[in-house]
């Protein structure tokens, strides 16, 4: 494995499989235990450096590090020196001086984790950078698919929604391709990047045409502000053309699953009855996020298995 996890392309097929296998082992090791904690990263320090509000991702990483017995520091931009104008580099040097072994970073600027990796000796884990990538989300999604369907090779995954601004989509396209899945992107053309043709994925505009051929449907969050920038005419029209409701869910093959990285806009990209159906893996994804992130921290920070 590389020293940092900055983007899904940092993982080749063996590395990615190792992360998923390790996550499964960790889950087994903790199953049924009263004390859900492993001593693996005792004495190591993990800093959660969050420049964007993201309670879900932060607590997932925090729990992952704590379950591995690491010391965890949460460094959020609000109310810290960052909000007083301290640069990313100065923050990095501060963390470096404190001896952080791992830095988990979430930033609104694409590429910020790559810059950070130039300035710290510890491992950098990208927890979401701008509209670029969110590799641990892709890992937990791959883990969830493999867990539910028993395989990744040849699995047909359809990713629906705001691909243009989605770091989840970018990481999933790359990682799922690495792991042998077949990815199709469905979105209004305004929400697909110019250049998407170079991605290892099929692209389509018609959700109904793709659903019967999908083993997995992954719905992306659509942010309300996109509406004001004329990416689509109205929430209602978006929902009608690209939302997953019960009728559309009925077009899926029998064992197909429905995923969403959260937070959801119920009634917009996904209907409540779909989100709460037996096909939905949304809650499972959250649980799998902790195991997968434990595996990443364990493999990157190099704790010896106990």
């Amino acid at each position, binding site marked *: 494995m590389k020293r940092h996890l900055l983007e899904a392309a940092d993982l080749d097929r063996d590395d990615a499989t190792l992360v998923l296998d390790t996550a499964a082992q960790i889950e087994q090791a903790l199953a049924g235990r009263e004390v859900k904690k492993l001593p693996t990263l005792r004495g190591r320090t993990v800093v959660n450096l969050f420049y964007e509000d993201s309670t879900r991702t932060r607590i997932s990483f925090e729990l992952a590090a704590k379950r591995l017995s690491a010391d965890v520091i949460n460094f959020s931009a609000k109310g810290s020196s960052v909000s007083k104008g301290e*640069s990313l580099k100065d923050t990095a040097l501060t963390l470096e001086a404190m001896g952080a072994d791992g830095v988990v970073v979430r930033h609104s600027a694409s590429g910020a984790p790559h*810059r950070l990796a130039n300035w710290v000796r510890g491992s950098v884990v990208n927890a979401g950078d701008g509209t670029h990538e969110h590799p641990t989300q892709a890992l937990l999604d791959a883990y969830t698919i493999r867990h539910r369907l028993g395989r990744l090779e040849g699995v047909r995954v359809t990713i629906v929604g705001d691909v243009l601004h989605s770091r989840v989509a970018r990481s999933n396209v790359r990682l799922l391709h690495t792991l042998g899945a077949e990815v199709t992107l469905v979105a209004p053309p305004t929400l697909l990047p110019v250049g998407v043709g170079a991605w290892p994925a099929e692209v389509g505009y018609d959700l109904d045409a793709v659903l019967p051929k999908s083993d997995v449907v992954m719905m992306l969050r659509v942010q309300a502000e996109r509406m004001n920038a004329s990416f689509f005419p109205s929430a209602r029209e978006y929902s009608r053309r690209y939302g997953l409701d019960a009728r559309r869910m009925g077009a899926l093959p029998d064992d197909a699953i429905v995923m969403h990285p959260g937070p959801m806009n119920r009634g917009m990209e996904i209907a409540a009855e779909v989100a709460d159906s037996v096909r939905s893996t949304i809650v499972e994804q959250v649980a799998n996020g902790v195991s997968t992130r434990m595996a990443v921290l364990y493999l990157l920070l190099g704790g010896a298995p106990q």
Partner: protein
Amino acid sequence: MTNYLIKGAKPLGGDAVDILIEDGRIAAIGDSLSATGAEVVEAAGLIALPGLVDLHTHLREPGREDAETVETGSRAAALGGFTAVHAMANTDPVADTAGVVEQVWRLGQEAGLVDVVPVGAVTVGLKGERLAELGAMADSAARVRVFSDDGHCVSDPALMRRALEYVKAFDGVVAQHAEEPRLTVGAQMHEGDRSAKLGLTGWPAAAEEAIIARDVLLAEHVGARLHVCHVSTAGSVEILRWAKSRGVQVTAEVTPHHLLLTDACVEAREGVGGYDPVFKVNPPLRTDADIEALRAGLADGTIDAVGTDHAPHAVEDKESEWASARPGMLGLEQALSVVIETMVEPGRLDWAGVADRMSVRPAQIGRLAEHGRPIAPGEPANLVLVDPAVRSTVDPAALASRSRNSPYAGRDLPGRVVATFLHGAPTVLDGKAQK
């Protein structure tokens, strides 16, 4: 004033001759000249060119003297072989009054390393709302002829039309930063495969081409001169070629970096981390196909000039995440080397062509009577002596600019400026600035 006898230089790459400089002008050219009291400059094997002229330089003074001053930028220019540079108007305060342009002009005179020719803002404060006092700047001691809101596009078509018309009264030219602002909101890099992959907001080629197309039509309609700054796309070259074939009075420049570098620089490569803002520039680095079209356009004259868009930035404005870094890169000291690398060595431009694109035409566009002149007796002694054979690796720490944001760091480039003469006095000798 000391006289100089340059021995054995090859004007425009021709036969070796001696060039005698007296009282700021070329006194004689011939074989085995001698002159008592003249200081001899050995120039065997060196190419002599008219002093280079830059239509597009950011000197940052007044306002950002921590990034560059007129003096440090002038020194960088002299070391790059330039004898005249046009200082862009986006200073603080903006060069939109006679007072500011005269201040910049005077600072240039005091530094004495290069003729600093101020560019006046087209609109007050570069805001694109109403015309600045263009005539007052033209009539000032700075004698402004080039007007530009560079950094911003004069995007209002009615205002652009008025500017083009108005400057005809004093033979001025509007130099447009062609960027349709509504198409480039939040734009970070060239829009294409790499922006999609890197998750950076795209800057579409069409945003440049749409403005150039509009402006050449306006220039034709009102019979005015238009100059297009930093042309960066193949489509722009096509539009310019079409406009010139119709007789539109349009000229254009290309930067050294757009001749050499592509958006691949933004991606991580072996040993180089990705998202390094030293490669962030506006307009952005484009594709191999664009580079090819720009080189072809410069070779056939569709693009008239090389303009450096030398844009110094303080370390803290570049050593950050990509989105918050300022756009721009250094260019004065490596411009000639990049042109040798991309145009001369591949055989696309000879030395006469280099002189034309880097001195003669930019001087004509800027209406500079004393620059871009032939190397001939009686002409002003604005000259540069270049050793085309030497290659060296660019070290940003060794540059004369106050800033270090060179995109060529670590790159091996050909050509060395050995000497530069400004009005007969050496500003550079043996590769070293003389003050």
